[in-house]
């Protein structure tokens, strides 16, 4: 039986064992009005810091412990060789403003990664600068904006179309970059409704932002028609690469007709999610958008690799420096290590997802087309229980619940992405737990979870009586 640790652990500030970080006492001259009067920081031994975090870590679930099928998040195994590589001092100690000649190794990694991402996506040029998927979206939409600005069409093209199944970051990024967001409904198969799209597209359309397979895990085989509708209108087609794990090695956004793509390296390319980040969200474009990429891009000439600021109509910068190097490095070594076998990961991820969907169909409604890609969405409505209650019940078995209440177009949605890392045995157990959940008494289920560090949390209280500081 699963039982997560629970400690009544003090806050760091409540320890008072005295810092043992030896530093010689030093003072400096400052004008009186600039001086800090008092500073309240934790004051404890390193050993206590170590124990504190060890205890907290025991109260945290992770993919290294068990299945973590959060839909849309691609929680796969993060190979440890990557962490070793990312800890090499030859990489960690590089200052971003050092001479180019001193960072040839790091630049080579970035250059090679750009090349890999081009091949994998079927696109022509890449920037590694964005810090996460949403940041990549924002960067991509800034490129859309600049493109139309240069064509003197920006005043007119001020709308971005997004399907109602889209992730929240899509409309948020489009709106942050100054566009009006137009939502189009999905059709009865969960796909883009071509008629609705036709009706929504106009001379005001700047871009259409989608992911394929979509957030229901369904591949839209109308994609070439969609691309035609968008391009005929003079607008651009944007690919949210969060679902790349479904297509890597099988097809590419390039061949599907997309103009701009972002990757989530922390999903598809196995870099650790770090309790919420850091991630990395490179953006790739077709060659006609090359001149708009943020600077610098990484280029190569006879002299070696260099930070190339020569991008004619660049949107400027989107990150402080050149991107999340330590994440880029891990993604690069993952691709280099696996090579063409990455396609096998895709196949396995899709097999796992279809297997789970097929088994769970017996207990839950799984709307839309039968054949899924790397993830699928079920509804708990038929069980008379809420997705929330089902998800809390699952936790009690030492497995992480799926994503819930997303996408918004499925009622009581549960979105499952097993990834290639899940074994049949693990999935069978998971299916079994979900079966139990389906047949649980609707009231009794509300008392779960029981075996996690804490039970159900009063979220309303947290929002009403805001405490965000110890």
């Amino acid at each position: 039986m699963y039982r997560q640790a629970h400690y009544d652990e003090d806050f760091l500030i409540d320890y008072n064992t005295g810092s043992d970080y030896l530093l010689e006492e030093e003072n400096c001259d400052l004008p009186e009005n600039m001086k800090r009067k008092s500073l309240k920081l934790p004051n404890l031994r390193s050993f206590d810091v170590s124990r504190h975090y060890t205890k907290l870590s025991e109260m945290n679930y992770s993919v290294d412990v068990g299945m973590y099928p959060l839909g849309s998040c691609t929680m796969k195994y993060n190979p440890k060789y990557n962490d070793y590589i990312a800890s090499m001092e030859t990489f960690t100690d590089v200052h971003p403003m050092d001479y180019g000649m001193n960072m040839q190794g790091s630049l080579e990694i970035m250059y090679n990664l750009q090349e890999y991402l081009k091949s994998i996506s079927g696109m022509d040029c890449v920037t590694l600068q964005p810090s996460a998927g949403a940041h990549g979206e924002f960067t991509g939409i800034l490129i859309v904006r600049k493109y139309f600005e240069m064509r003197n069409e920006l005043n007119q093209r001020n709308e971005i179309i997004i399907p109602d199944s889209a992730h929240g970051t899509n409309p948020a990024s489009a709106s942050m970059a100054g566009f009006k967001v137009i939502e189009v409904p999905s059709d009865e198969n969960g796909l883009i409704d071509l008629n609705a799209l036709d009706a929504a597209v106009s001379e005001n359309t700047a871009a259409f932002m989608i992911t394929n397979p979509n957030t229901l895990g369904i591949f839209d085989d109308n994609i070439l028609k969609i691309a035609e509708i968008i391009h005929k209108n003079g607008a651009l087609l944007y690919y949210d690469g969060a679902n790349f794990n479904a297509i890597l090695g099988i097809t590419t956004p390039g061949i599907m007709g997309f103009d701009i793509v972002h990757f989530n390296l922390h999903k598809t390319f196995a870099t650790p999610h770090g309790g919420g980040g850091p991630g990395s969200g490179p953006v790739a474009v077709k060659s006609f958008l090359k001149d708009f990429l943020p600077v610098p891009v990484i280029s190569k000439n006879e002299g070696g690799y260099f930070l190339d600021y020569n991008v004619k109509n660049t949107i400027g910068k989107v990150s402080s420096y050149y991107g999340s190097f330590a994440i880029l490095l891990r993604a690069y070594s993952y691709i280099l290590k696996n090579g063409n076998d990455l396609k096998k990961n895709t196949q396995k991820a899709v097999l796992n997802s279809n297997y789970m969907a097929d088994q769970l169909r017996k207990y839950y409604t799984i709307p839309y087309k039968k054949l899924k890609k790397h993830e699928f969405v079920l509804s708990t409505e038929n069980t008379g229980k809420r997705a929330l209650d089902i998800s809390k019940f699952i936790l009690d078995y030492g497995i992480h619940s799926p994503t819930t209440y997303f996408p918004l177009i499925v009622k009581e949605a549960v979105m499952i992405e097993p990834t290639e890392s899940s074994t049949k045995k693990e999935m069978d157990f998971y299916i079994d737990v979900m079966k139990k959940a389906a047949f649980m008494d609707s009231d009794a289920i509300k008392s779960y979870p029981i075996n996690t560090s804490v039970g159900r949390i009063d979220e309303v209280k947290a929002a009403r009586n805001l405490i965000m500081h110890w």
Partner: protein
Amino acid sequence: MNDDELMLKSLAMGTFDDLFSDIPEELRVNMDIGKPLSEQKLIEKIKKISGQNVNMVKFLGNGIYDRYIPHLVDEIISRNEFLTSYTPYQPEISQGILNALFEYQSVISDLTEMDVTNSSMYDGFTSLGEAVRMAYRVNGKSEILIPENIYRAKYEIIKNYVYGLNVKFVEYGFNKNGLLDLDDLSSKINDSTSSIIVENPNAFGLIDENAIRVREIKKNALIITYYDPISLGILKPPGEYDSDIAIAEGQQLGIHMNMGGPLLGLFSFKKDYVHKSPGRLIGLSNDKNGNKAFVMTLQAREQHIRRAKAMSNICSNQALLAVAATAYLSILGGSGLRNIASITVNKSKKLKEKMKSIGINTVFDGINFSDNLFHFDKIDILKKKGIAGGIKLSDITYMNGITDASFFSVTEKTSNEDMDYLAESLRGF
């Protein structure tokens, strides 16, 4: 049959290809990115590449600093329980990271003496962009006052972040001592001013006495202070001089330089603005048994609920590095941080003396924190001598008027020998 075959069979499928029958032939590709490698080969290849990086004596800073990182910090953030988890969408099973992020919010709020700190942003520069957007949401006004010496990269990023808003930038200047010019700034503040970006230490590297006096002239504008987190070991914190939003790059707090990424955006503000703020917030509540319990709170501000009307598009953030920063500050404690900050100021002073002794003077008199601006532009000599440093002011700011000025930066790791070597190398040039 192996497991894969069993699963295919249960799906009534013969091969993996059947799983992709929905992808039209014309969209299929033949990916060729090379054969897989053994781990041993991989490491050999990567080591060979990394061997091309060269580590010179460094006087580099201007935002990223080579500070000493206690091993315990790396140890903590290498724990798989933190490293391989994700955003705590299921708080009951994720109390560890939630607790750690709550402590991060607390420790940064204490450091800055601000009311609230969110649980991390991408980096310092993008946080500044988000701060300007937040100020605009608070007061809807259109003018942003910005220091004329601000790093170009910061300015460009802020411009990108407000691309969609109806705002304009007004630059204010610095006096002959390199400090914020209060008269100039004051003359530019009016009813349309949304926010005033103030840097302390300022972009010349100077501890700026005028920065803390902006409150006297701000009228109804919001003050956005960009600070150096190490400097707060000794300097008056932004909360004490009425900053509405306080922003910093947190790399110095236990995060390796890594060529400038990933970084950590520190984002703090007055509590009145919490509903207009970007990013994730961790709140304290209790579970149904009365145990102390943490959750992500005020999520209705965020993209997954508010979509196009969200306060920001940020989703994945820099959580793990926020844990690193908390561990770093806890290991050092208040006295440790004060000592490191004092050492930094004293090393800057020593560097200025040594440079002066060979005839290289600072552009401004004043107290520098880490970055020191000298009349010097012979970068080629540095390169030949194996010294990395000498970032030209005109390369990283719009201050094209001062053409012969370069920065040399120090941290507690800068040794006397390094400084002597620099001075010896530049003697006579």
